[in-house]
């Protein structure tokens, strides 16, 4: 697909809107209208650009936010569920457990054990900038030495 500048900007705007949490949440159809793309076309081009459907992106960004709140704050699982935009605790917990592989409360316990400095994120759960390297087996570096 070849995306023109205008369509690219509208899709980026749509992605920003999908991250927001409101009491009257926009449906995907309303959101498409908001950025002036036809609803059918919208899902297709959104996925072509971002590699994920609008609906899945919204769910993913809520779960990402839930992970941070569970790891850093003193919120209960119910508070976190509401805060990130889910209305049912049951469906939030099910979804979280399916995607993150453990339940929200188990994740919270695990994260809290790892937090060394209050308010910071444990790098085991929120890695970035190559810090996974420190936990590789020594064999992972064999090729590095061979090449030198």
């Amino acid at each position, binding site marked *: 697909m070849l995306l023109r*500048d205008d369509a*690219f900007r509208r899709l*980026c705007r749509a*992605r920003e809107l999908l991250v927001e949490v409101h009491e009257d949440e926009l449906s995907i159809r309303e959101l498409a209208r908001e950025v002036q793309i036809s609803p059918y076309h919208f899902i297709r081009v959104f996925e072509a650009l971002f590699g994920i459907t609008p609906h899945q992106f919204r769910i993913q960004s809520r779960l990402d936010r839930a992970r941070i709140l569970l790891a850093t704050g003193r919120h209960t699982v119910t508070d976190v569920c509401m805060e990130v935009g889910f209305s049912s605790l049951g469906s939030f917990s099910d979804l979280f457990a399916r995607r993150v592989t453990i339940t929200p409360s188990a994740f919270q316990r695990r994260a809290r054990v790892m937090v060394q400095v209050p308010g910071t994120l444990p790098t085991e759960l*929120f890695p*970035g*900038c*190559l810090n*996974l390297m420190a*936990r590789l087996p020594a064999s992972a570096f064999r090729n590095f030495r061979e090449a030198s």
Partner: protein
Amino acid sequence: MRIKLTSIMVDDQEKALKFYTEVLGFRKKHDFPVGEYRWITVVSPEGPDDLELALEPNANPAGKTFQQAMFAQKIPIAAFEATEIQREYSRLRALNVTFLGEPTAVGPVTIAIFSDGCGNLIQLYQPANP
């Protein structure tokens, strides 16, 4: 010291491995589980074969903010050199890759920007013949 490893943040490591190997055509070099993530690197079959690109999880919120802001400003996060950009462009278009424009001559290079479907824009470039 030498430049041996560089990395790119991706929103889904499995999806990224598929795209960077099956679509872009890179070869998987390492794939180790690390906690709930993986250490995945790819190399280009066109070389140099000891220069690895790590497909890192963008699990850290700082990384995610950076990645999304760069994307929205249309700033590529990495650039790969093509020997024949027009041919590469046609090949990737046929594989459903989303481009933000056709290959365009800009100064001493011809460039085309595409989305990797993992949250990044990548610049494909071909230097002009000297």
